């Protein structure tokens, strides 16, 4: 298809619809509101559900219900709203529900401000909710990826029965760029969900729950979750490298930071210095093996984040 010049936030919505997302539940917050606004406009045009919930808590629980029914469903918000969703996200991870959560991050703590920041790293990648779980976290750095990674998020959510996060900063959400949209995923290509509670005869014996009263049962459940996470770690690591082959210093950053670093690398290269860029696309699973290998070769890593440093403490080798 031809390219369309479009805002990152709007590309998320079109990508979601192309991926067969049937329901969007949201609540306004800058700089994520365009996602809810675009969803409010487009979802009803194709017979799908848009609802502005009473709160982010309401929204994530509506997604919980929709995902239990087995349809592709999503919500989107920004940092303070994501804090409110954490209980629901933990439940969804525990109940192994497929759903997509978009976070267009802003400044914090507290009300902070609406400027772009990457200080949601811990609450998304390390788990802001309670319990033993992990979320797949995808970090787009352009409008095209806002579409592509949203579509991928639905695919991964279904494949692994897990909530998937698309986390972008306010710049990536607000900027406009050309996007080439793929064709809609045919309905017949969506994976069947025999485990769902779809309100049908075939599914009426099913149960969606995150409770395991017996400690042994819960431990078994968590071990199963972690076996699944290990599978995700071995199959779903994604990253991008730019001029790393001969680099002596490698800049590491994600989201808009990676874009800024790309420009910096180009400038410094012009001065003859050997620098490169490493961009994690999946913040979890983090590309730690690849990064460790690059570091083992004696190169220095230079980690840049729009936060006080969250990825650097926890992941960089």
């Amino acid at each position, binding site marked *: 298809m031809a390219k369309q010049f479009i805002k990152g936030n709007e590309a998320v919505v079109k990508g979601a619809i192309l991926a067969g997302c049937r329901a969007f539940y949201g609540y306004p917050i800058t*700089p994520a509101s365009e996602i809810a606004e675009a969803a409010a406009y*487009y979802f009803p045009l194709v017979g799908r559900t848009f609802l502005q919930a009473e709160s982010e808590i309401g929204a994530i629980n509506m997604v919980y219900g929709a995902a*239990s*029914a087995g349809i592709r469903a999503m919500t989107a918000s920004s940092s303070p709203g994501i804090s409110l969703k954490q209980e629901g996200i933990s439940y969804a991870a525990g109940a192994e529900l497929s759903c997509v959560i978009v976070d267009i991050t802003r400044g914090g703590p507290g009300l902070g401000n609406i400027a772009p920041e990457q200080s949601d790293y811990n609450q998304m990648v390390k788990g802001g909710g309670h319990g033993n779980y992990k979320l797949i976290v995808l970090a787009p750095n352009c409008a095209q990826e806002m579409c592509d990674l949203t579509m991928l998020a639905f695919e991964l959510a279904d494949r692994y029965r897990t909530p998937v996060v698309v986390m972008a900063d306010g710049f990536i959400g607000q*900027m*406009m760029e050309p996007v080439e949209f793929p064709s809609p995923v045919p309905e017949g290509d969506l994976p069947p969900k025999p485990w769902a509670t779809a*309100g049908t005869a075939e599914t009426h014996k099913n149960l969606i729950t995150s409770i395991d009263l017996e400690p042994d049962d819960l431990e078994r459940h968590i071990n199963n979750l972690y076996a699944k996470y290990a599978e995700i770690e071995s199959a779903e690591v994604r990253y991008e490298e730019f001029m790393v082959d001969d680099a002596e210093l490698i800049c590491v950053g994600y989201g808009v930071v990676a874009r800024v670093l790309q420009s910096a690398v180009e400038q410094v290269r012009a001065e003859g210095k050997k620098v490169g860029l490493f961009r994690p696309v999946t913040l979890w699973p983090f590309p730690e093996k690849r990064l460790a290998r690059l570091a083992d070769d004696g190169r220095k890593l230079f980690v840049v984040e729009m936060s006080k440093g969250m990825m650097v403490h926890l992941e960089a080798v």
Partner: protein
Amino acid sequence: MAETIFRKAKSFYDIYERKGGANKEVTHYCPGCGHGILHKLIAEAMDDFGLKEHTVFISPVGCSVFAYYYFDCGNIQAPHGRAPAVATGMKRANPKSVVISYQGDGDLAGIGGNEILQAANRGERISVFFVNNAIYGMTGGQMAPTTLLGMRTTTSPHGRKAGNEGYPLGMCELLSTLKAPAYVERVALTDAKHIMQARKAVRKALKAQVDGKGFTFVEALAACPTNWKVPTREANRWIVEMLEPVFPVKLFKDEIESRESEALEDRTYGPADVVAALDLPTEEPDIAFVRSPQAIKDPQIKVAGFGGQGVLLLGLALAQAGMRAGYHATWLPSYGPEMRGGTANCHVRISEHRIGTPLVHDSDVLIAFNGPSIDKFAPMVKPGGLILYDSSLVDRTIERSDVKAYGLPFTEVADKELGNGKASNFVAMGAFIVASRGVFDEGVVKSILPLVIKRKNMIELNERAVAAGMRIARDALAS
């Protein structure tokens, strides 16, 4: 109680396998607990209407968290208080299903107060069964929003006081003031007569849902002998003497008969409908544009002025024209507080290569529509760069000799020549085409105007604005 008279409902499992433990034929509820009675009434109604295969039962956090041990239907266990939101997502995913939100008083009237209020107010087509036992049963007898004044609980050991904890919350009273709910009734799970009434209410609520009549709500006054610390045989009397005076048993609202049944949309949307609805371009337009070797290379552009001067729109048009002419392009607006106080600016990059940062700090080109923008951004233009500013509005002179600066009367031309001052931004666009030595041309800009200008009748005006801008720029550059 009348339990033993009836056969076990088919909507219950025969053996409660999910329950675990030794005795899988009895429930986990305490003797005399109201939950067991209400479960039975619901299961019997599901039997009678043949609903079990299409019902999804949402259990709350509370003693009824394990309702899914018993009901032979789809089951979802929801976070504390959120069952009405979960029910909303479920019901809207499959409007033909029958969705039950089953909740206790802590769950519904306490932590989930907003979820129930808003679901009721939206008229979600679900049935809510609300067990009011005036206490937090599961957690061991703490105060609930429905706890009576003076009543001692583990968290109101001196008795509930209105001045400290407020009054018992009447949910039927509250919800029946809303327009959307079709049916709101309070019943009591006490003697056979009242249980028959409750049975009717449960049936009515479920039938109304099957018929697509809207939101239905049944509150059941129910015993919790364990946490009331009242012997089971006295629990009914306690409901009658203590609860009912505060929570009167009555029909609060019933509009089921007068409501229209909801009609379900059954239209399906194919891939072509989706592409059309999303307004996706299907083929690349044919643009005969050849890049000029003299053009400014990979310009980083800052456009700035007052809000309302079309600054963001001009930036967008520049970027779109760049894309149409085959370049990579980005557009980033200033947003939020930066925009307050009436100034606006945006960052545009047009490049033959993949673009790194979308932020423009030191620009190659500045297009400025007011004095403050010149003050702020002119010093940041790179040596050898280009400044185009609206001389109709800017009274500054530019003190830099290392840049090319052209003051052109964008607003005056738009005003006098085109009769619309608002077109000044596209006059500037024309000037950019000429002064940038053809990053793109007039034809390219013409082709993107319909994409950026929503009002069709303004397109022709802006085409003329571009032409006028090109003319005045040519004149200025020649002199």
